[in-house]
């Protein structure tokens, strides 16, 4: 009986219910998309932040060894001879290159990219007087991946075993009149004498920062020139994930390798940490506003429905139906409406979140099944709240209705 009446009612006011259903379904679609987005936005925005370069670095832990050093976050420089007494230079502690292969074994969701750096100071052999320059040794096949902002004119060096080619910074090229294809000769001096090396310039790097003033070659070439075998000065890391996850990976690594010093790059961590909660906050507010609007929409359709149904209710009451029973029928109707709207909207929301992800991040945002119960609960609650005007029907007096007023 209950269900038959319900079925009749649903059938009778199809137009009105369709408006409410559209409202609920579109509210559910937008809510689904935004909840998916909110769950994913932190990860996606964090991934964007990785384009800012390394977010962690490894340097030798000098305090641990009791050794004194000129080690910097970016790497260990052997300072120019006139700045440093001879014996002081030997003390620079470095990182064993074999550590890089250990890092390579860590799954890529923990450590995305690891690039070693070794900096030495060299002289341009053919320049009059002494024109010093920083010679950076790295893996030239990997370094531009970690620094996507490098603008390379000419050809990049794609093999890390290529000892013949190098990149030169924009200012170096300008000062010495170099172009891709020119050769440069560098001289390195230490206590055992002078050694020369010649490179063919493959490309010119501009970055607006230190690389503009450097000659960048493969690590092996710099190690060979300076006779620092199997050692690097610093390792730059790109660790994927949110700031919290990055911090966790760093502390795990620091615990496992206590002879090294791991640290997050503070400015990137800080910018990320200040931005993420703001984006999340904005999306949260939008979801709240959209829910309010959907409730309003359902409320309006239900109020109209209540008006229309006064006559039905009068009739039901006249033949002995109790108010609570009548109201129960209407609320079941509202809940069914909420459920149907939520299901339709959820399917729509899957497509919507894909589209949003595609637009904003060029990656589809996958729909998560755990969003479905949330959306259903929200929508049923919203339509029940919207159905509150139906309670007014309790006040209907059957006599008036039957009289036709």
């Amino acid at each position, binding site marked *: 009986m209950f269900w038959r009446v319900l079925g009749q009612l649903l059938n009778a006011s199809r*137009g*009105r219910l369709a*408006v409410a259903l*559209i*409202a609920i379904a*579109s*509210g559910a679609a*937008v809510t689904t998309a935004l909840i998916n987005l909110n769950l994913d936005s932190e990860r996606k*925005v964090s991934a964007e*932040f990785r*384009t*800012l*370069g390394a977010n962690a670095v490894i340097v030798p832990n*000098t*305090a641990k060894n009791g050794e004194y*050093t*000129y*080690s*910097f*976050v970016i*790497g260990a*420089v052997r*300072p120019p001879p006139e*700045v440093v007494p001879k014996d*002081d230079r030997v003390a620079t502690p470095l990182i064993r290159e074999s550590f890089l292969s250990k890092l390579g074994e860590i799954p890529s969701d923990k450590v995305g990219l690891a690039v070693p750096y070794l*900096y030495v100071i060299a002289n341009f052999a053919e320049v009059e007087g002494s*024109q*010093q*320059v*920083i010679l950076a040794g790295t893996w030239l096949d990997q370094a531009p991946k970690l620094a996507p*902002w490098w*603008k390379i004119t000419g050809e990049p060096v794609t093999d890390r075993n290529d000892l013949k080619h190098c990149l030169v910074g924009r200012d170096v090229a300008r000062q010495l009149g170099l172009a891709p294809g020119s050769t440069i000769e560098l001289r390195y001096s230490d206590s055992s004498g002078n050694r020369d090396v010649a490179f063919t310039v493959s490309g010119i790097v501009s*970055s*607006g*920062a*230190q690389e503009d*003033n450097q000659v960048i070659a493969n690590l092996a070439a710099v190690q060979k020139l300076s006779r620092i075998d199997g050692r690097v000065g610093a390792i730059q890391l790109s660790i994927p994930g949110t700031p919290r996850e990055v911090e966790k990976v760093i502390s795990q690594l620091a615990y496992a390798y206590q002879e090294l010093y791991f640290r997050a790059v503070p*400015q990137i961590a800080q*910018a990320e940490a200040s931005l993420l909660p*703001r984006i999340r*906050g*904005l999306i949260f*507010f*939008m979801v709240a*506003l*959209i829910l309010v*609007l*959907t409730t*309003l*929409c359902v*409320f*309006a*359709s239900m*109020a*109209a429905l209540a*008006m*229309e149904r006064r006559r039905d209710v009068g009739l039901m009451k006249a033949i002995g139906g109790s108010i609570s029973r009548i109201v129960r029928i209407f609320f079941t109707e509202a809940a069914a409406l909420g459920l149907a709207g939520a299901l339709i909207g959820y399917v729509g929301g899957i497509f919507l979140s894909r589209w949003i992800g595609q637009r*904003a*991040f060029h990656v589809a945002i996958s729909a998560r099944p755990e969003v479905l119960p949330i959306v259903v609960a929200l929508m049923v609650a919203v339509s029940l709240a919207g159905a509150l005007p139906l309670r007014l029907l309790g006040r209907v007096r059957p006599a008036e209705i039957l009289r*036709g007023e």
Partner: protein
Amino acid sequence: MFLRIITESFTRTPRRKFLTGAALALGMAVATATLTVALNVGDRLAAEFRSLGANLLVTPKADTLPLEVGGVDYRPVNAGAYLPADDLPKLKQIFWRNNIKGFTPFLDVPVGAGHPYAVILDRDALTRTTLIGTWVNHRVEIGGGETFDTGVSTTHPWWHIENGGRWFDEGSKEVVVGVTLARRMKINIGDKLSIAANEHSEYPQVTGILTTGGPEDDSIVAPLFIAQLLADEPGKFRHLTVSAVVKPDDAFGRRDRTKFTAEEYERWYCSAYIGSISLQIEQALPGVEARPILQVAEGEGKILGRISVLLWVVTLAALVAAGLAVGSTAATSVIERQKEVGLMKALGASNALVGAFFLGEQLLLAVLGGGLGYVLGVLLAWWLSVSVFGVSAPARMIMLPVTLGLAIAVAIAGSLLPLRRASRFDPAPVLRGE
């Protein structure tokens, strides 16, 4: 007659009108608020990004190659060019001066540092390090009696003095020591240091221990004037970092500026692109080269672009929801009154006249509801902006006509469909009460 019917309709059934009006007001409040926030969000996020630090580097144009790693220059003091610090106030006189959030000059001097008397007793026992002369929170006179406070506290906000210490006073012979250097030299707050470079030596007091995560951790950071004394270069600095709020480069901003027409050049010059700000800095300070630090500038532009697309999409979703809510309440209010339509038609009203009545009503509601919605929306935007960004979003007057237009469009669009249906009604059954 027309007006009387509309007035009657408002006074007879105020509750129904109230519902439609409330829906309009709420929907338009959400539209106004989300649009206001979305219009301001770019600026706010760009300002947040300044915590990444400076995005412009200014160096002397004719210079030897700096021996720079991680922002510290290891050149000896007699090599390379210097710039006069007296020119710096001119940075706050360029066209985009309000976008210059801070600038900091640096002068790096290779020094030997040790405990007091080490200089006299045994110069070789000094620890080799770099003294970085800079401003922390320096008051610059920018002309017109105005001042501007700038220094590393603005351009390098992640530089952090460990608890118990403080930054040096810029007029005094005080320094702060990087955390690694302090540990290795066993320096404590309050100690006196002797610092020697070439023929000069200074004996400043240590006021704090500095952590930066960069090579400064292994250096001494001092007021600019101490570095100038040690380098024997009074009033000079080596390089300058500038933190500017910029507009992300678009296709126009990336174009080659030598190929602009005069009009395009004007437009480019008066946009806050990083290129035009660099050019203005080069024009203001003679003999310098200003270049964007691509790591910060490019990354910032890219991330900001992505985030603003994301927020616009979300805003669009909220707008659609607002439109639906308003449209459906408008539709409901028309459906409710089919009986009236029937009566009007029975009395000889044409479809056009009936439509005009309803549209006139919706129009009035839209203007009232939209106006109220605008006021509510401004408040909502203010609250949203304060709770998310901690800064209020300025209300824009342009939003008022936009909101009203939107309200009218949505309300009319929502009532058109049911009106068309109503106009097809045969008045007879409606009047019979069926």
